[in-house]
Protein backbone atom coordinates (compact mmCIF):
# COMPACT_ATOMS: atom_id res chain seq x y z
CA UNK A 1 0.00 0.00 0.00
CA UNK A 2 1.36 3.42 -0.93
CA UNK A 3 1.91 5.91 1.85
CA UNK A 4 -0.65 8.39 0.49
CA UNK A 5 -3.27 5.63 0.31
CA UNK A 6 -2.49 4.56 3.86
CA UNK A 7 -2.80 8.13 5.13
CA UNK A 8 -6.11 8.72 3.29
CA UNK A 9 -7.60 5.56 4.80
CA UNK A 10 -6.28 6.62 8.21
CA UNK A 11 -7.94 10.04 7.83
CA UNK A 12 -11.26 8.26 7.25
CA UNK A 13 -10.79 5.71 10.05
CA UNK A 14 -12.72 7.57 12.76
CA UNK A 15 -15.46 9.09 10.65
CA UNK A 16 -16.42 10.41 7.23
CA UNK A 17 -14.67 13.44 5.74
CA UNK A 18 -14.87 15.58 2.61
CA UNK A 19 -11.98 16.15 0.20
CA UNK A 20 -10.47 19.24 1.78
CA UNK A 21 -10.90 17.72 5.23
CA UNK A 22 -8.89 14.69 4.13
CA UNK A 23 -6.08 16.92 2.81
CA UNK A 24 -5.74 18.88 6.08
CA UNK A 25 -6.09 15.73 8.17
CA UNK A 26 -3.40 13.85 6.20
CA UNK A 27 -1.10 16.83 6.67
CA UNK A 28 -1.71 16.70 10.42
CA UNK A 29 -1.29 12.92 10.69
CA UNK A 30 2.01 13.05 8.81
CA UNK A 31 3.32 15.92 10.91
CA UNK A 32 3.09 18.34 7.98
CA UNK A 33 5.26 16.16 5.73
CA UNK A 34 2.60 14.94 3.27
CA UNK A 35 0.56 17.60 1.48
CA UNK A 36 -1.81 15.87 -0.92
CA UNK A 37 -2.72 17.80 -4.04
CA UNK A 38 -6.36 17.63 -5.20
CA UNK A 39 -5.56 15.73 -8.42
CA UNK A 40 -3.61 13.09 -6.50
CA UNK A 41 -6.31 12.87 -3.83
CA UNK A 42 -9.23 12.35 -6.20
CA UNK A 43 -7.36 9.84 -8.35
CA UNK A 44 -6.58 7.89 -5.19
CA UNK A 45 -10.20 8.17 -3.96
CA UNK A 46 -11.48 6.85 -7.31
CA UNK A 47 -9.09 3.87 -7.13
CA UNK A 48 -10.14 3.17 -3.55
CA UNK A 49 -13.79 3.31 -4.59
CA UNK A 50 -13.14 0.88 -7.46
CA UNK A 51 -11.34 -1.41 -4.99
CA UNK A 52 -14.40 -1.22 -2.71
CA UNK A 53 -12.42 0.23 0.22
CA UNK A 54 -14.35 3.52 0.50
CA UNK A 55 -17.84 4.78 -0.33
CA UNK A 56 -19.75 8.06 -0.42
CA UNK A 57 -21.31 8.85 2.94
CA UNK A 58 -23.35 12.00 2.15
CA UNK A 59 -23.36 15.26 0.22
CA UNK A 60 -23.72 18.83 1.42
CA UNK A 61 -23.82 22.21 -0.25
CA UNK A 62 -21.68 24.73 1.65
CA UNK A 63 -21.42 28.32 0.32
CA UNK A 64 -22.88 27.14 -2.98
CA UNK A 65 -20.18 24.48 -3.40
CA UNK A 66 -20.62 20.72 -3.34
CA UNK A 67 -19.03 18.76 -0.53
CA UNK A 68 -19.02 14.99 -0.74
CA UNK A 69 -18.17 13.02 2.39
CA UNK A 70 -16.35 9.70 2.10
CA UNK A 71 -16.24 6.85 4.59
CA UNK A 72 -14.47 3.50 4.91
CA UNK A 73 -16.36 0.37 3.87
CA UNK A 74 -15.96 -2.76 6.06
CA UNK A 75 -13.42 -3.99 3.47
CA UNK A 76 -11.56 -0.67 3.82
CA UNK A 77 -11.49 -0.95 7.61
CA UNK A 78 -10.12 -4.48 7.29
CA UNK A 79 -7.41 -3.47 4.83
CA UNK A 80 -6.29 -0.52 6.95
CA UNK A 81 -6.19 -2.64 10.11
CA UNK A 82 -4.13 -5.32 8.35
CA UNK A 83 -1.73 -2.74 6.90
CA UNK A 84 -1.34 -0.96 10.27
CA UNK A 85 -0.57 -4.27 12.00
CA UNK A 86 1.99 -5.10 9.33
CA UNK A 87 3.74 -1.73 9.67
CA UNK A 88 3.68 -1.99 13.46
CA UNK A 89 5.27 -5.44 13.36
CA UNK A 90 8.02 -4.14 11.07
CA UNK A 91 8.63 -1.06 13.21
CA UNK A 92 8.75 -3.18 16.38
CA UNK A 93 11.30 -5.52 14.80
CA UNK A 94 13.46 -2.59 13.71
CA UNK A 95 13.39 -0.98 17.17
CA UNK A 96 14.13 -4.29 18.88
CA UNK A 97 17.20 -4.89 16.74
CA UNK A 98 18.40 -1.31 17.14
CA UNK A 99 18.18 -1.77 20.92
CA UNK A 100 20.18 -4.96 20.67
CA UNK A 101 22.78 -3.05 18.68
CA UNK A 102 22.92 -0.43 21.43
CA UNK A 103 21.32 2.37 19.45
CA UNK A 104 18.45 4.25 21.08
CA UNK A 105 15.72 5.55 18.86
CA UNK A 106 15.13 9.28 19.14
Amino acid at each position, binding site marked *: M*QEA*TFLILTALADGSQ*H*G*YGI*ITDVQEISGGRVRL*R*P*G*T*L*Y*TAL*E*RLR*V*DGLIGVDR*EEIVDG*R*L*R*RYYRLTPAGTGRLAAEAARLQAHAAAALRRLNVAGVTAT
Partner: protein
Amino acid sequence: MTDQEHLERAYRRRLAWYPREFRNEHGPEILAVLMAGARDGQRRPGLAGSADLIRGGLSLRLFPCVPRSARTVRAAVWLTCAGAVIPALSLILGLVTLSAKGIVGGLIVAAMWLCMARAIGQGRNGARVFSVVLFGVVTLALGIAVFGFGGPGHVAGMTAFSLSLSVLNWLIGLAALGLLWLPASTAFFRPSILVEAQRAARLAERARIAAVRY
Protein backbone atom coordinates in the same frame (compact mmCIF):
# COMPACT_ATOMS: atom_id res chain seq x y z
CA MET B 1 -12.86 39.43 -13.79
CA THR B 2 -11.71 38.97 -10.21
CA ASP B 3 -8.62 36.96 -9.34
CA GLN B 4 -10.84 34.22 -8.01
CA GLU B 5 -12.93 33.93 -11.19
CA HIS B 6 -9.74 33.96 -13.23
CA LEU B 7 -8.27 31.11 -11.19
CA GLU B 8 -11.50 29.11 -11.22
CA ARG B 9 -11.66 29.32 -15.01
CA ALA B 10 -8.07 28.14 -15.31
CA TYR B 11 -8.83 25.20 -13.00
CA ARG B 12 -11.91 24.29 -15.05
CA ARG B 13 -9.72 24.12 -18.16
CA ARG B 14 -7.25 21.81 -16.38
CA LEU B 15 -10.11 19.54 -15.33
CA ALA B 16 -10.76 18.83 -19.03
CA TRP B 17 -7.91 16.30 -18.74
CA TYR B 18 -10.23 14.07 -16.72
CA PRO B 19 -12.68 11.65 -18.38
CA ARG B 20 -16.05 13.35 -18.96
CA GLU B 21 -18.01 10.90 -16.86
CA PHE B 22 -15.68 11.44 -13.90
CA ARG B 23 -15.70 15.21 -14.42
CA ASN B 24 -19.50 15.37 -14.40
CA GLU B 25 -19.55 13.45 -11.16
CA HIS B 26 -16.60 14.98 -9.30
CA GLY B 27 -15.80 18.26 -11.13
CA PRO B 28 -17.68 20.65 -8.79
CA GLU B 29 -16.28 18.88 -5.74
CA ILE B 30 -12.66 18.98 -6.95
CA LEU B 31 -13.10 22.62 -7.93
CA ALA B 32 -14.30 23.40 -4.39
CA VAL B 33 -11.18 21.72 -2.94
CA LEU B 34 -8.90 23.53 -5.41
CA MET B 35 -10.43 26.90 -4.55
CA ALA B 36 -10.29 26.16 -0.81
CA GLY B 37 -6.54 25.51 -1.15
CA ALA B 38 -5.86 28.65 -3.21
CA ARG B 39 -3.71 31.45 -1.81
CA ASP B 40 -5.05 35.00 -1.56
CA GLY B 41 -4.69 36.76 -4.89
CA GLN B 42 -3.68 33.59 -6.72
CA ARG B 43 -4.60 33.85 -10.42
CA ARG B 44 -2.92 30.80 -11.93
CA PRO B 45 -2.85 27.11 -11.00
CA GLY B 46 0.97 27.10 -11.13
CA LEU B 47 3.19 24.49 -12.71
CA ALA B 48 2.96 21.91 -9.92
CA GLY B 49 -0.80 22.43 -9.59
CA SER B 50 -1.34 21.94 -13.31
CA ALA B 51 0.96 18.91 -13.46
CA ASP B 52 -0.99 17.32 -10.61
CA LEU B 53 -4.32 17.69 -12.41
CA ILE B 54 -2.94 16.58 -15.79
CA ARG B 55 -1.33 13.51 -14.24
CA GLY B 56 -4.51 12.61 -12.37
CA GLY B 57 -6.66 13.08 -15.48
CA LEU B 58 -4.40 11.01 -17.72
CA SER B 59 -4.17 8.27 -15.13
CA LEU B 60 -7.96 7.99 -14.91
CA ARG B 61 -8.27 8.08 -18.70
CA LEU B 62 -5.73 5.30 -19.11
CA PHE B 63 -6.93 3.10 -16.27
CA PRO B 64 -10.58 4.09 -15.85
CA CYS B 65 -11.24 1.20 -13.53
CA VAL B 66 -8.08 -0.82 -13.06
CA PRO B 67 -7.67 -1.37 -9.32
CA ARG B 68 -4.24 -0.64 -7.90
CA SER B 69 -4.03 -4.30 -7.02
CA ALA B 70 -4.07 -5.30 -10.72
CA ARG B 71 -0.40 -4.41 -11.21
CA THR B 72 0.17 -6.62 -14.25
CA VAL B 73 -2.79 -5.06 -16.08
CA ARG B 74 -1.59 -1.54 -15.27
CA ALA B 75 1.89 -2.39 -16.57
CA ALA B 76 0.34 -3.85 -19.73
CA VAL B 77 -1.66 -0.64 -20.32
CA TRP B 78 1.49 1.46 -19.87
CA LEU B 79 3.41 -0.75 -22.29
CA THR B 80 0.60 -0.54 -24.83
CA CYS B 81 0.71 3.25 -24.61
CA ALA B 82 4.49 3.10 -25.03
CA GLY B 83 3.84 1.12 -28.21
CA ALA B 84 2.24 4.22 -29.70
CA VAL B 85 5.45 6.24 -29.31
CA ILE B 86 7.36 4.87 -32.32
CA PRO B 87 4.38 5.15 -34.73
CA ALA B 88 3.83 8.70 -33.42
CA LEU B 89 7.48 9.49 -34.23
CA SER B 90 6.95 8.05 -37.70
CA LEU B 91 3.91 10.31 -38.04
CA ILE B 92 5.97 13.37 -37.09
CA LEU B 93 8.74 12.32 -39.47
CA GLY B 94 6.11 11.86 -42.18
CA LEU B 95 4.80 15.38 -41.56
CA VAL B 96 8.31 16.80 -41.77
CA THR B 97 9.27 14.93 -44.94
CA LEU B 98 5.72 15.18 -46.36
CA SER B 99 5.53 11.43 -46.84
CA ALA B 100 1.88 10.38 -47.15
CA LYS B 101 2.80 6.80 -46.31
CA GLY B 102 4.54 7.87 -43.11
CA ILE B 103 1.66 10.15 -42.03
CA VAL B 104 -1.20 7.70 -42.68
CA GLY B 105 0.70 4.65 -41.46
CA GLY B 106 1.93 6.40 -38.31
CA LEU B 107 -1.53 7.78 -37.54
CA ILE B 108 -3.34 4.46 -37.96
CA VAL B 109 -0.80 2.41 -36.03
CA ALA B 110 -0.50 4.93 -33.16
CA ALA B 111 -4.30 5.18 -32.91
CA MET B 112 -4.59 1.39 -32.80
CA TRP B 113 -2.12 1.09 -29.91
CA LEU B 114 -3.95 3.80 -27.95
CA CYS B 115 -7.38 2.25 -28.64
CA MET B 116 -6.06 -1.11 -27.46
CA ALA B 117 -4.66 0.51 -24.30
CA ARG B 118 -8.04 2.07 -23.57
CA ALA B 119 -10.03 -1.11 -24.22
CA ILE B 120 -7.66 -3.11 -22.02
CA GLY B 121 -7.95 -0.49 -19.27
CA GLN B 122 -11.73 -0.92 -19.38
CA GLY B 123 -11.27 -4.61 -18.66
CA ARG B 124 -12.78 -5.85 -21.92
CA ASN B 125 -11.80 -9.46 -22.44
CA GLY B 126 -12.52 -9.04 -26.17
CA ALA B 127 -9.65 -6.55 -26.33
CA ARG B 128 -7.32 -9.09 -24.78
CA VAL B 129 -8.34 -11.71 -27.34
CA PHE B 130 -8.15 -9.22 -30.21
CA SER B 131 -4.64 -8.19 -29.18
CA VAL B 132 -3.51 -11.79 -29.73
CA VAL B 133 -4.95 -11.75 -33.27
CA LEU B 134 -3.38 -8.38 -33.99
CA PHE B 135 -0.04 -9.53 -32.65
CA GLY B 136 -0.21 -12.66 -34.84
CA VAL B 137 -0.79 -10.59 -37.97
CA VAL B 138 2.04 -8.18 -37.12
CA THR B 139 4.39 -11.08 -36.36
CA LEU B 140 3.57 -12.67 -39.73
CA ALA B 141 4.14 -9.40 -41.57
CA LEU B 142 7.40 -8.76 -39.77
CA GLY B 143 8.50 -12.35 -40.39
CA ILE B 144 7.91 -11.99 -44.12
CA ALA B 145 9.74 -8.65 -44.13
CA VAL B 146 12.78 -10.16 -42.43
CA PHE B 147 12.94 -13.75 -43.68
CA GLY B 148 10.76 -13.60 -46.78
CA PHE B 149 11.71 -12.79 -50.32
CA GLY B 150 15.48 -12.87 -50.75
CA GLY B 151 16.37 -13.88 -47.19
CA PRO B 152 17.65 -11.71 -44.33
CA GLY B 153 19.08 -8.39 -45.32
CA HIS B 154 16.88 -8.08 -48.40
CA VAL B 155 13.94 -6.29 -46.92
CA ALA B 156 11.85 -4.57 -49.53
CA GLY B 157 11.42 -0.86 -48.90
CA MET B 158 12.75 -0.99 -45.33
CA THR B 159 15.95 0.49 -44.03
CA ALA B 160 17.82 -1.26 -41.25
CA PHE B 161 16.76 1.61 -38.99
CA SER B 162 13.02 1.33 -39.63
CA LEU B 163 13.27 -2.46 -39.40
CA SER B 164 14.88 -2.29 -35.98
CA LEU B 165 12.17 0.12 -34.82
CA SER B 166 9.54 -2.35 -36.01
CA VAL B 167 11.26 -5.13 -34.11
CA LEU B 168 11.40 -2.92 -31.00
CA ASN B 169 7.66 -2.26 -31.23
CA TRP B 170 7.08 -5.97 -31.73
CA LEU B 171 8.98 -6.67 -28.51
CA ILE B 172 6.86 -4.09 -26.65
CA GLY B 173 3.76 -5.85 -27.96
CA LEU B 174 5.12 -9.23 -26.91
CA ALA B 175 5.80 -7.99 -23.37
CA ALA B 176 2.34 -6.41 -23.08
CA LEU B 177 0.70 -9.58 -24.34
CA GLY B 178 2.66 -11.69 -21.87
CA LEU B 179 1.48 -9.49 -18.99
CA LEU B 180 -2.14 -9.60 -20.18
CA TRP B 181 -2.28 -13.38 -20.15
CA LEU B 182 -0.63 -13.89 -16.77
CA PRO B 183 -2.99 -15.61 -14.31
CA ALA B 184 -2.79 -12.46 -12.13
CA SER B 185 -4.36 -10.41 -14.96
CA THR B 186 -7.14 -12.80 -15.84
CA ALA B 187 -9.32 -11.94 -12.83
CA PHE B 188 -9.63 -8.35 -14.03
CA PHE B 189 -11.11 -9.10 -17.47
CA ARG B 190 -14.81 -9.55 -18.17
CA PRO B 191 -16.80 -10.00 -21.38
CA SER B 192 -17.45 -6.69 -23.17
CA ILE B 193 -21.20 -7.03 -22.70
CA LEU B 194 -20.70 -7.06 -18.93
CA VAL B 195 -18.46 -3.98 -19.12
CA GLU B 196 -21.20 -2.15 -21.06
CA ALA B 197 -23.90 -3.30 -18.64
CA GLN B 198 -21.91 -2.05 -15.64
CA ARG B 199 -21.27 1.25 -17.41
CA ALA B 200 -24.99 1.65 -18.11
CA ALA B 201 -25.85 0.82 -14.51
CA ARG B 202 -23.31 3.39 -13.28
CA LEU B 203 -24.74 6.09 -15.57
CA ALA B 204 -28.28 5.28 -14.45
CA GLU B 205 -27.21 5.51 -10.81
CA ARG B 206 -25.57 8.89 -11.41
CA ALA B 207 -28.68 10.16 -13.22
CA ARG B 208 -30.76 9.04 -10.23
CA ILE B 209 -28.47 10.88 -7.79
CA ALA B 210 -28.59 14.00 -9.98
CA ALA B 211 -32.39 13.81 -10.16
CA VAL B 212 -32.63 13.60 -6.37
CA ARG B 213 -30.27 16.52 -5.93
CA TYR B 214 -32.19 19.00 -8.10
